[in-house]
């Protein structure tokens, strides 16, 4: 959980009513994120670690940290698999 996911800079996206819609210029694929995935997307700034994103989710939805960690890990993996998020080790210093 120490990696810092970042939004793929190649994508076009906007937030409407707290939800994110993403479109990929490569293949015109549209991705509609639900409320939780949208929050993960917003916090995935390449600085916050997965753990820190889980803390934000726990606070936002008032759930236990362990449950938020599991959800965050699952969502980040799913978004990474679709190349929407890029996950890299945090920059030192």
């Amino acid at each position, binding site marked *: 959980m120490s990696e810092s996911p970042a939004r793929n800079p*190649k994508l*076009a996206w906007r937030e*409407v009513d707290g939800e994110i819609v993403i479109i990929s210029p490569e293949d*015109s694929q549209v991705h509609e994120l639900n409320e939780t995935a949208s929050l993960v997307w917003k916090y995935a700034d390449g600085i916050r670690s997965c753990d820190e994103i889980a803390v934000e989710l726990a606070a936002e939805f008032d759930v236990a940290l362990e449950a938020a960690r599991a959800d965050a890990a699952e969502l980040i993996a799913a978004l990474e698999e679709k190349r929407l998020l890029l996950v890299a080790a945090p920059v030192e210093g």
Partner: protein
Amino acid sequence: MDRWIRRTVERHLPWNVHLDLTYRCNERCIHCYLDHEDYGEMTMLEIEGVLKQLAEAGTLFLTLSGGEIFLRQDLFELIAYARRLHFDVSVKTNALLVDVEKARRLKELGVRGVQISIYSADPEVHDAITKVRGSLARSLAAIRLLQGQGLHVKIACPLMTHNLAAYRGVQALAEELRIPYILDLTITPKMDGDAGILSLRNPARDLLPILQDPIFSPKSCDRDDAPQPATGGTGSSSSSGLESHAYDDIPCSAGHNSCYISPYGDVFPCVQMPVATGNVRRERFEEIWFHSNEMNRVRAIRESQLPICSSCTIRAHCERCPGLAQMEGGDLSGAYERACELAELKASVAGVENPVSALHVKNGRGAASCKVPPLNVFPQASA
């Protein structure tokens, strides 16, 4: 996508914006409605300011057009800036200035679509319309360069008296190139109101064979399944190019979730709707978009309340455009002759017995009688 379109319509978010960067052009197309002089285009800094405001207002789909966009020396800087603001960027160009390097840069910057006007597969016909000898060959070479970079290219083919029979050739060309295409019957008066170029518009009766051709419908011609702001068809009621029930009781997306901005900063509900709502050089975009009286007047129009068209029995066959209604009849909510003629033709093709538009009923005029001829009546359909 329908859910998002509905949201943007309900909340009046400017989801699609068409921004012309210049009216200058290196072609002189005979049907063009623009004045190609430069009266003081927005600078790069001004445009960047506008893009920032659009991003804040919620615009996702940004179409950069002209004029010829490659005449802007700062084009790539502007696209790069737009991409940094996470816009989905498409461009319209004649592509005469596109070389390998420019194609590569468009791809590198993440431009999603490139639309190029092709008027015929016959260089004599195409070049006579653009008034630039060799322009078809150059545009086609550019299409191949753009494709070589993996860019999504689309052909747009406005049809007029000079190239009506050319659509089959353009279709074949698009199939050979394996790219989508749009056929468009819309010819509008010039921006200064000069209606002289309307003489290039095909008489409605000449369009019957085309309207009968199954390839001529926005759904079958615009074969790009991707959601993308685009105009097409015959002055379609969905100017965003995105089909949605969100538009059911409004004439089109203009002013609801889309708008047009000129190179001089003037904001209009649509490129085809000459209703000036404000200028981004003098006011913030959101002030114009949300609070302009004219924008709100356009927004208030409902299909079910149109004074003539709401009672029309062949409304389902009509692609009435409020902008053209304004330009041709002087009333955004009004009926206009061209739409009625086309609706009657389409209704005939669809098998409606003696279709007469509400405007023609009101004027005591029956539809121009037309017997529906068989398909493929064009003797030079391969032009």
